[in-house]
């Protein structure tokens, strides 16, 4: 069985010479298993793509399944783009990401810095206060936030979608860890030179934390690009819908043809998958780092 191979630490294994003679690993078998499991996780997306490329002459459902489009056509992508305000949904999502992510980074960094580097009364309390938001399920906040937004007259507006997404415990948590890991000497040197806390934050701490900030930007992009539930509650006007909500709307409107829906869904996935594929190593290693703390 594949799990039988000894578990090893990549970093250590890279630096250490092979200390012990060990069982020859069944490499081919391992790869076969890896590919099979990959099929389970990537397959549904490939199926979506295949469906979107099928010509209308070929049935979507057949038994046994006939998955290869013959010949592949792009008609459904054109249809998804033209019959639905698709460009509008995309543009909205770009706007939501473009406004929210920078604000999210600034708020996370300024909140995390004192929690990591300045000693003050109630630091632990404030840290737990921000962290506690991690344990609140979104559904619980739906109704009261809806009422707050109504009170503020912001329902069905862009700020209604943006405001709740700016404060995230994950951002504060990860940046606090990063700031806390900066060696004391670096900060002390800046203090001896007479730099104020703001100066240290801007010129010393943030540049050092740049890798974490970059990862947060990516994670923020992914989460806002996919946001569905809150926009569903906060928005009425479909011209303000982000793409994920647009897809659900699409499935309601053109529920008649699954190929069109599949094409629209694939289009909504392209940006987020592209970002992930290019940056996956950073995303995965930072997630692992966050868990290790």
């Amino acid at each position, binding site marked *: 069985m*594949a799990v039988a191979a000894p*578990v090893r*630490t*990549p970093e*250590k*294994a890279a630096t250490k010479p092979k*200390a012990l003679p060990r069982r020859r690993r069944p490499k081919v078998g391992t790869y076969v298993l890896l590919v099979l*499991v*990959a099929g389970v*996780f*990537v397959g549904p997306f490939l*199926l*979506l793509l295949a469906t979107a490329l099928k010509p209308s002459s070929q049935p979507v459902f057949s038994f*046994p*399944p006939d998955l290869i489009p013959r010949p592949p056509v792009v008609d459904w992508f054109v249809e998804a783009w033209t019959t639905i305000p698709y460009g509008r949904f995309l543009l909205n999502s770009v706007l939501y990401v473009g406004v929210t992510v920078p604000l999210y980074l*600034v*708020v996370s960094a*300024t909140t995390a810095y*004192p*929690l990591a580097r*300045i*000693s003050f009364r109630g*630091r632990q309390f404030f840290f737990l206060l921000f962290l506690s*938001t991690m*344990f*609140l*399920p979104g*559904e*619980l906040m739906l*109704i*009261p936030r*809806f009422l*707050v937004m109504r009170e503020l007259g912001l329902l069905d507006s862009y700020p209604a979608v943006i*405001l*709740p997404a*700016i404060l995230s415990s994950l951002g504060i948590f990860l940046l606090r860890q990063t700031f806390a890991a900066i060696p004391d000497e670096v900060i002390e040197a800046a203090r001896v030179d007479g730099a*104020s806390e*703001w100066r240290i*934050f801007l010129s010393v701490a943030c540049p050092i934390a740049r890798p974490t900030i970059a990862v947060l930007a990516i994670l923020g992009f*992914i989460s806002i690009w*996919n946001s569905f*539930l809150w926009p569903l*509650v906060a928005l009425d006007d479909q011209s303000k819908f982000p793409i*994920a909500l647009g*897809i*659900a709307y699409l*499935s309601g409107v053109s529920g008649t043809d*699954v190929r069109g829906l*599949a094409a629209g*869904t694939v289009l*909504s*996935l392209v940006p*987020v998958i592209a970002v992930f594929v290019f940056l*996956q*190593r950073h*995303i*995965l290693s930072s*997630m*692992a780092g966050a*868990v290790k703390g």
Partner: protein
Amino acid sequence: MAATGLIPRVRRPRHGPRRVVGQKAWTPYLFMLPGLLLFALMFGWPAFISLQMSVSSYRIVTPVRYVGLDNFLRLAADPQFHHAIGNTFLFMAMFLPFAVVLPLFLAMLVNRRLRGIHAFRAAYYLPVVTSMVAVAVAWRYLLSQEGVVNWLLSLVGLGPIDFLLDTHWALPALAVVEGWKNMGLFMVIYLAALQGVPREHLEAATVDGAGAARRLWHIVLPAILPYVTVTLTLGMLESTRSFESIYVLTRGGPQDSTLTLGYYIWHTAFEKYDVGYASAAGLVLWLIMIGLALANQRLTRRRDA
């Protein structure tokens, strides 16, 4: 909670509180001002409203009216609410293997030095970064009566099952979809855990003739146990957040068989406009979650002692 690794202890300042040059007493609060304002606006105020609503009758079109504990008495007698609580725990039980057990095997599978292993890790993580709506669209095809899943079942002489329209199968099907989507996340947690397992111990055990199962049971599992608490806690939280898949795939049906607390609250507030009553149900969900978190903490502490 510290022992779970979710909330690490804040490192105590080395020299105790002291005033640093250029730092005024209110500097830290000034730093945190945007964060605190947003916290008040997006968590504090909503929490206050939530409490207020839970003891009120409010149906959007009517004015808010204080009703005391009426909402909670109504909930206590509401069979649909009881059904939703049952479904929530049932769903949690079916989801947890996808959060706690299966990702460990995934992590062991990809925790090795092989050419292209990063591509495989990324592939397993892919569903985590995509939207639940897109995932739901794909799985609606897969789970339909003529879908690929039923075809695979037919190969071994089973089915067909119309998963999303069958009252017995809809909730398990949703658990599989949610589990499939989130497994990569838990895999990464275990991957981080496995990198901390002492290599020397494993090699020593191998030399002593311990097989894979023994190594897993006696060396790997004890070493990663703290992380199991993390996946368990996160898995419980995640399972209560399963709203989107339900919304897109089943809308709580057929016959309320996929009606969980999260969906019940949404349905009561935004489809029946019974906002006060839904808020009371939300408070109950919140209490359940606190209870689970505390139970989890207790479990961890006992093992630490």
